[in-house]
């Protein structure tokens, strides 16, 4: 009996190692990116590490998922997107939009798109508050399947595969990491 339990446990352990190993290799780019932060001050490492676990898990869940992407005229092969929703806390949305505004030079405006699950009025407020001039599409009333997400997220939408890549759920006060993320996106997709 004990042998049977041990064997099952070992099998589960092996299975999960293989599964997470596979996912890890798939996402190694993002891990590389996060390592940038680990080279910084040691007193911040703990907090960053805890946040990262959450981020990585979220990224793993959402990467390579098919989304019902809205129709866009003259769509490029890769569209860099920021998804924001009314369900998300306004501080997080404001922070995410500010990250975009402060790093926007890295990405051409024509390749950037904000998907906003906002009603008309709220959307007008968002545009006016941040003076957003980029392309914004309202996903209000559509079934875009990242809508339940509680945090704003950046990702690349691949037109060919119709799937998402390079998900990032920006952490507050981690502007260096966001900057590095934008540069990574630029180098990989837009150069």
């Amino acid at each position: 009996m004990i042998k049977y339990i041990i064997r099952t446990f070992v099998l589960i352990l092996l299975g999960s190692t293989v599964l997470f190993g596979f996912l890890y290799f798939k996402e190694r780019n993002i891990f590389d990116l996060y390592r940038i932060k680990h080279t910084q001050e040691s007193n911040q490492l703990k907090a960053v590490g805890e946040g990262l676990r959450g981020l990585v898990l979220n990224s793993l869940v959402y990467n390579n998922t098919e989304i019902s992407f809205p129709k866009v005229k003259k769509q490029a092969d890769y569209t860099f997107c920021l998804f924001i929703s009314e369900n998300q806390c306004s501080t997080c949305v404001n922070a995410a939009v500010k990250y975009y505004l402060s790093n926007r030079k890295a990405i051409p405006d024509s390749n950037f798109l904000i998907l906003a699950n906002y009603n008309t009025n709220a959307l007008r407020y968002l545009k006016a508050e941040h003076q957003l001039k980029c392309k914004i599409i309202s996903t209000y009333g559509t079934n875009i399947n990242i809508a339940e997400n509680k945090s704003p997220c950046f990702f690349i939408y691949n037109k060919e595969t119709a799937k998402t890549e390079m998900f990032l759920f920006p952490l507050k006060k981690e502007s260096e990491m966001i900057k590095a993320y934008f540069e990574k996106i630029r180098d990989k997709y837009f150069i």
Partner: protein
Amino acid sequence: MRLLSSVFILFLFGCNNNKCTQIAKTNSSTYTIRIPLTEIANNDFIESAEYIFLDQEYLIGKIGRMLFYNNDVYIHDEMTGRIVVFSNKGKYLYSIDNKGKGPLEYYKLTDFTIDKSNGNVLIYDQYSHKVISFSTIKREFVKEHKIEFYPSALACTSDRLYFYNPFTSNYPREEKYHYSLITTSPQLKDEKRYFKVGEKIGNFMSDPNRKGFFYGNGLYLLNRFGNDIYSLNGDSISVNCKILFENNEDYLSALNDAIEKGTRNTLRYKKCAADIRDFCETTNHISFRYMRNNKQYSVVYSKKENEIIAHEANYIATSPLLMKRNIPIYLFPSNVTNDSFVSTLPFYCIDQIIHNEKVLNEMDTHMTDKHLLKKLKTVDENSNPILVFYKFKTKLK
């Protein structure tokens, strides 16, 4: 001779009486506008219109108070709590934005006015209960004053600063003053002053949900429980405009009934003409809107000819007649400069036209100003509202 001298004596005694003084004042400065039940739907009252497309460099959320000073347009963006300044040609100049809870910062911009004596924009912050001055010359915040009451609006004339204070929780117990209106010097240095309650001015309290003051040739305040418009001048207040509606005898009793029931949503009240809004006055005209039977009527009155030149329930119009004069769309004005009425055309109004093929074809046929037409067609939901400056005719043909 005896007869003449007795008439003179009677005249002298008569004028010492308060009633006579009141009547004399009323005759010299009050306009009485009689509004009939019938509509005058004729777009021919518009003399000219100038369309100003506001720069897209600054995207406005929602236009609140709009003031005109030194050929510039000052707009309170109610959505974002900023004041945005455009030139009179629509070029974006700068925005006044200093949100915060510290010195010379504001947190909740409730209203603003311009002190024309020094060109300072006075911003009232309802959160910190202070008035902050922004110098349009230096383009920086220069000073702030704490105030100990909680107004919802402020306005400025050359020598006085007025606060509209409709929230009765701030009122002292005395009943001889109108505590809803307070005046001080523009520098806020002297004691605040109130206006005495009297038959002459009645109850001029405005609705707390509205902005209180109207600008035009002077500074005006709307009566909350009546259809009179008051004019503010220094430390005095007087009736500027009496608006008498036909078949509106039940108004006061319906109003009392509404107050008793705690709602204006009664059948009796709705049947009456009431709730005057967007009062605008230029040298030659007066315009305003009112509600009756759940419809919003707009009125344009010619002061010169003492006649109503427009009175209709429909306040947005387009017609071949207007198009021929390069006025593609008319929307009832809500603001005023010294000589023009101003309306802000939002996208949803233009949308009805530019996405209606029939109207668009008519415009192509009738309008000679193709540049204006082209610009109108480029307007989309992300565009700022268009400012339209109208001049009205003094007399209908």
